[in-house]
């Protein structure tokens, strides 16, 4: 079983190498003067539809994204526990099913609370 993870580790290394090589080739082409490199101030300016750039974009950002992230954590934990149960459902039987129903019920209460508080709406 562990051998499989070794395969995946080597494959991951190969994927990263592929990406690095793909990014390295243009650098070599630039050094060989095959692809152009003539930066100037206007070209390397931040693109803003032709207007002059104002300020930076590294700013504090809208709060509503944060609520979605919180919801994701709550529900993703639910799902993580559902997977092993689903794979073993016949062995765990009715008692396991009831336990999972109670678990889902608890999370769903939170879900409806968020719904009532209008947190699921994009405003």
């Amino acid at each position, binding site marked *: 079983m562990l051998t499989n993870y070794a395969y995946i580790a080597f494959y*991951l290394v190969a994927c*990263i190498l592929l990406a690095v090589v793909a990014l390295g080739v243009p650098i070599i082409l630039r050094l060989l003067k095959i692809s152009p490199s003539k930066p100037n101030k206007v070209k390397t300016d931040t693109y803003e539809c032709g207007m002059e750039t104002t300020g930076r974009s590294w700013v504090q950002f809208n709060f509503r994204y944060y609520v979605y992230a919180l919801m994701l954590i709550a529900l993703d934990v639910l799902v993580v526990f559902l997977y092993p149960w689903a794979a073993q459902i016949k062995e765990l039987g009715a008692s396991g099913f009831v336990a999972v129903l109670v678990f889902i019920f608890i999370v769903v209460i939170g*879900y409806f609370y968020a719904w009532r508080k209008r947190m699921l709406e*994009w405003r």
Partner: protein
Amino acid sequence: MTMPLIGSDALSYAEALPPDWPGSFWAHIFFWVILLILFITVIVLLFTWLERRWLGRLQIRPGPNRAGPFGLLQPIADVFKLLLKEDIVPDKADKWVHWLAPVVALAPALLVFAVIPFQDGALLADLNIGILFILAVSSMVVIGVFMAGWGSSNKYSLLGAMRTIAQEISYEIPLVLSIVGVIIISGTLSLNEMVKAQQDVAFIFVQPLGFIIYITAALAEVARTPFDLIEADSELVAGFHTEYSGMKFALFFLVEYAETLAVAAIATTLFLGGWQGPFLPPWMWFIIKLFAVFMFIIWVRGTLPRLRIDQVMGFAWKFLLPLALINVVITGVEVLAWPDAPLLALGIINLVVAAVLVLLMSKLFKLGGGRVPV
């Protein structure tokens, strides 16, 4: 089974390999890594060609038809063009993050294919938690996307990246829940075993609701139309890759298509019977089904207009999520109450349930009383 991870005894590895694969540890890695990377590259090139041709047909125009027969050499020409383009990095950008972002996005997108079976036992690593591995790895692409959006120091990039995250984490949950139904019926997390469980009936007939939820959520995950508002050209220029050019842009393009290919491959494996099929060799069936799913995705793109952001988010949280949860509970009840039911009987029940639920939910589903103040 316990064995040393890396050693000199090649025979002990041969015992641990998938059934029909002769050879040692290194031969297996060498063969499969090269095969997978070639497979993904070639299929992605074919996909870009197919998408433009097929979209052209849908819009009653020829599509690219100059380079080579039927325009087949068009993707190759595009690759060379992108390779020779000037690489522009904005002055204000965080150079390292800007450079690393395509690498971080590409690696997990390719890693998904490590556990997809092309034929019985023919895969890089037959993990017993295959589907969990796929879900864990595929959601890491977002990190690369966010690095791109943040590192570019561009307002459009940042907005696009933020929207990507909001949309992907919202659709993650219905996507993951829709797969639980398949796991309940097949009773395993290994993809190869799941395909074997579909010997008689493909799971699309047993889990119709699960398939609908999966394909909808997956379209949103990979940001295809009608959910492509994270790179909506009319509002965000190009989304997170506004400031990317040349080969870095090409890598993001590759990521996008590799993700779509992954979606097609997972849909094929989980719902369409994977490599199972009569007459033709199994791997050929797998590729045929892959292309069928991809053509369906392009068809959706050619048919539906782009949605609004509040519609997209509301659809995930208020429509797909309850539906997916109900589907899980119903499937669980069926399997427990009628343990040795024929799959087709379950399928008929599920089809009726799916039709009723979808009709009911679409009557109930409203956004702000049907009218949203803009």
